[in-house]
């Protein structure tokens, strides 16, 4: 996933979560600035598989194995979970 595509997805995600902020392309991948928080998202190197992403904040790195895990980590890091995120539930067959 190239940085512009990642930036677009994360910027849309901030909007979806109701977070005011901006997403910029940075040397490592993208930088997210929301309030007084600055986070970075970087793609993991091939030898770091099965990790695919790193979320960096305050000198700490948190790994994510998929874009789904990255979004979840980022949302929690931004404290954008005013209500418990819904989990998919399976209904009876139609």
């Amino acid at each position, binding site marked *: 996933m190239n940085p512009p595509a990642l930036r677009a997805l994360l910027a*849309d995600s901030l909007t*979806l979560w109701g977070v005011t902020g901006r997403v910029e392309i940075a040397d490592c991948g993208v930088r997210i600035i929301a309030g007084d928080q600055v986070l970075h998202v970087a793609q993991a190197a091939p030898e770091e598989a099965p990790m695919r992403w790193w979320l960096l904040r305050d000198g700490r790195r948190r790994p994510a194995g*998929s874009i789904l895990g990255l979004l979840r980590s980022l*949302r929690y890091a931004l404290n954008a979970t005013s209500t418990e995120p*819904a989990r*998919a*539930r399976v209904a009876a067959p139609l």
Partner: protein
Amino acid sequence: MIPVSVITGFLGSGKTTLLRSVLRDPAYAGSAVIVNEWGDIGLDHELLETSEENLLGLANGCLCCTTRGDLARTLIDLAARRKSGAVTYHRVLIETTGLADPAPILHTLLMDPSIAEDHRVEAVVTVVDALLGAETITRHPEATQQAMLADRLLLSKTDLAPDTSALEAALASLNPGAPILRAVHGAIPPDMLFASAAGPETLQHWLEAIATPGARHSAGVETISILREEPLPAVVLPLFLEALAEHAGEKLLRMKGIICVAEAPGKPAVLHGVRHVLHPIQWLEDWPSADRRSRLVLIGQGIPQWWPVRLLEALEEEARA
């Protein structure tokens, strides 16, 4: 499994008139009817000509909020009485109040294991007043919600409104997948309303309605259509649905889709969901038409237009890596 259909529509739209007409049809005369009324004195159920033991009134509250528990208990009690032979019915029709949001009602019907054990949701029919409907859906979010969640939209009082084109355009914008039917005094063959919403006729209608990808906006509601030429790896499907539920959760009012899965391109997967509640994927034996592209419609409020597409592409890229 006992089929359950929900009849909703704004105040005065003609729900009870429709129900009276439906119950005159011999095939529907033996339905169990649950009428929800708001107010201390219920009148609507007095207007229905059906056997007393099959008619239940839920007054003093709205099904979508205060009396949801009553609905569950009523359905479970009814099913128990049916099993014991105390009552006979082959389907349940639920008439909501005019201010009801159908989503929590559907949630109760779909997710309460005691209900889902014996019942299946067949269709949500929303009655829209042909004369006043355009103004109503502009002014009242309840009416908008009712239109968006319909499997079928029924224009009532069409004898009073010679030109319904503006209303039909507004309804199609809110809910492009729902067929718009017409009736005067509720006169319409009930099967046109209550046939399973997962059936081929409904599927074909919304597939045609969403032929154009992109987003349409109306009254703060977005209809986002996704069209994909390439088959999707099977693993992407549950990940995408999980992400939709987790992040778009309460903002996603309805989702329908037909997906070409790379591992089984001849057997399309049909998706149905209300908010974060998803039905198990249906696998069709064949495509309903020559068009074998994946198509997905999301109806929601506050979901960025391109977020679902971007997410899908990101997941697909990871799956193919």
